[in-house]
């Protein structure tokens, strides 16, 4: 097992009180495996990703019962040990390619900086590695591109550079936080395929943060569905899609645009809004928006085993085939 996280909690101090952004999230990823964390924006998935690298903002505090990377307790690591891990064995791809690169350095310089931060390598070796990876991520004229500044490249190109940067030191685990959301739809598919191919050929573990269920169905081995800071369902990918058990998961699946959807008819969406996490809620977080909600849902609800490796945080699993309300 590459990374193992048990009962991760993240609190954020705000002017209006403490916000429990992530509550008791657990997961693990092995080599070559892909875990997808799915949820709406603000559900805590991005901050979970940042916490893995120890990059939380100062106002956030992280606690976990266990958090190990390759068997080593990450909570006991010193800053220097963590830094030696980041970008080296554990790497990350961010959402915004337009701003993720330093505007004042050439991309070659930035790629080399990463390599030389972790390897005792000559400039020449680092440069060769950079050229190799730029070619791997589908950039032509890699040698000349090294001298380009970020602003001289398109968004898609920049994200390729960001991916190459994350792969410079052959990481064992890569965390990708919505790596294609900011890009044109036409480029999205191409870049994702590239990312998945690279993952397979390098044998990396991957944690993909996304809200795109179509993407999840194509790449995930395992899926975690998060809602308002909590895991509401976790399952191997095929089980999640054949047997979605939590009402929120079903609602999410119902709101994926279907190409056969009749034109000019309103797209399905989930009624209501995500609750504020400022006050710790006792019962089900999805209560207010759930068609199956009852008084029993106001009590604390644990993740429950449904089948092999399949858990959902709902006491009504299996009850009534709900028909999703379509809201204009």
């Amino acid at each position: 097992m590459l990374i193992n996280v048990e009962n991760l909690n993240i609190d954020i101090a705000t002017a209006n009180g403490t916000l429990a952004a992530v509550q008791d999230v657990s997961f693990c990823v092995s080599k070559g495996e892909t875990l997808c964390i799915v949820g709406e924006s603000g559900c805590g998935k991005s901050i979970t990703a940042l916490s893995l690298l120890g990059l939380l903002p100062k106002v956030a505090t992280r606690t976990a019962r266990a958090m190990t990377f390759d068997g080593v307790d990450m909570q006991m690591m010193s800053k220097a040990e963590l830094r030696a891990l980041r970008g080296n064995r554990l790497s990350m791809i961010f959402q915004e390619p337009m701003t993720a690169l330093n505007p004042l350095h050439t991309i070659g310089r930035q790629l080399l900086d990463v390599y030389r931060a972790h390897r005792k390598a000559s400039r020449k070796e680092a440069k060769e590695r950079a050229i190799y990876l730029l070619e791997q991520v589908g950039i032509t004229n890699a040698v000349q591109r090294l001298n380009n500044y970020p602003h001289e490249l398109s968004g898609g190109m920049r994200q390729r550079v960001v991916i190459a940067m994350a792969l410079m030191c052959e990481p064992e685990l890569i965390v990708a936080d919505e790596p294609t959301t900011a890009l044109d739809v036409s480029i999205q598919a191409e870049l994702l395929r590239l990312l998945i191919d690279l993952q397979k050929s390098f044998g990396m573990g991957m944690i993909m943060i996304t809200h795109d269920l179509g993407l999840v169905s194509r790449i995930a081995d395992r899926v975690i569905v998060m809602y308002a800071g909590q895991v509401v369902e976790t399952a191997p990918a095929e089980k999640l899609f054949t047997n979605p058990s939590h009402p929120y998961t079903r609602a999410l699946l119902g709101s994926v645009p279907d190409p056969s959807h009749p034109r000019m008819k309103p797209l399905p969406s989930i009624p209501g809004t995500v609750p504020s996490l400022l006050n710790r809620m006792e019962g089900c977080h999805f209560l207010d928006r759930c068609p199956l909600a009852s008084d029993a849902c106001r009590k604390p609800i644990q993740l429950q085993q449904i089948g092999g490796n399949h858990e959902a945080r709902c006491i009504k699993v299996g009850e009534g085939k709900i028909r999703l309300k379509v809201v204009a």
Partner: protein
Amino acid sequence: MLNYAVRRIFMACLLALFVSFISYSLIFAAGDPAAAVAGEASTAADAERIRQLYGFDQPILVQYLHWLSGVLRGDLGTSLYFDQPVATLLLGRFAMTAQLGIFALILALVIAVPLGVAAGRWPNSIIDRLALLFAVIGQAMPSFWFALLLIILFSVKLSILPASGTASWQSFIMPTIVLGYFAMPAIMRLTRSGMISALEADYIRTARAMGLSEARVLFDYALRNAALPIISLSSAQFGFLLAGSVVVESVFAIHGAGSLAWESIARGDLPTIQALVLCFSLFYVVLTLLADMLNAMLDPRMRSK
């Protein structure tokens, strides 16, 4: 880039012309130059004679153009007091002031930039509060009073530094501190806010996620981005600092352009005053021009334009 440079230089020239005209006419509009030249003991007839002799009776634009054509030929007029060409007079004086100004700017940068970096790296920490206190005090400190306080402490009470003159390198210590402190608050604050916003940038998060060392993140990635506005500000501050030398040079009896300005004003030496105002303005215009050029060269986004 070339296009930008040409346009920027053209603007600077236009600016210099405009500023020189405004300064020229402002000083003329302020009083009767003939009376000022003639001195307090003169009669109305004396003033009238001088008015005609110097051409003060002509429209101001004519006088300005006349003066300007001289300036462009390198003739800044003749000092009424020293009876020698203003240009020669100014050369030596400006060398002194520029020297003092450079010392002061270096001191300001050496103290204010690291302080601003530390304050921006650890906002609301003790060091940030101390840096802010240092800046707030600097902004409220009248430089002439600060100069006198230093003299009282180091020359009168402790007698370890000379109170005036430029005889030895020790004489430059207090003037440099006073002028430097004058420029520090603005530079410190800008460095601090620049570092704070740079450290919040996505590319810093990327650099950290890639495991770059804290020193590299702080100085190579963040400070370099924060440095661009610091360059602009420093050049402007250098201009202000040169102009501020009027006060400091008069306190420390340094024979630079600043004290010359003060003396010339007290003596009503109009050609010298005009030339000095022109020179100080030109300094500012040229300095900001250079800073913009430097910025354009350091910022690849500007460079490729």
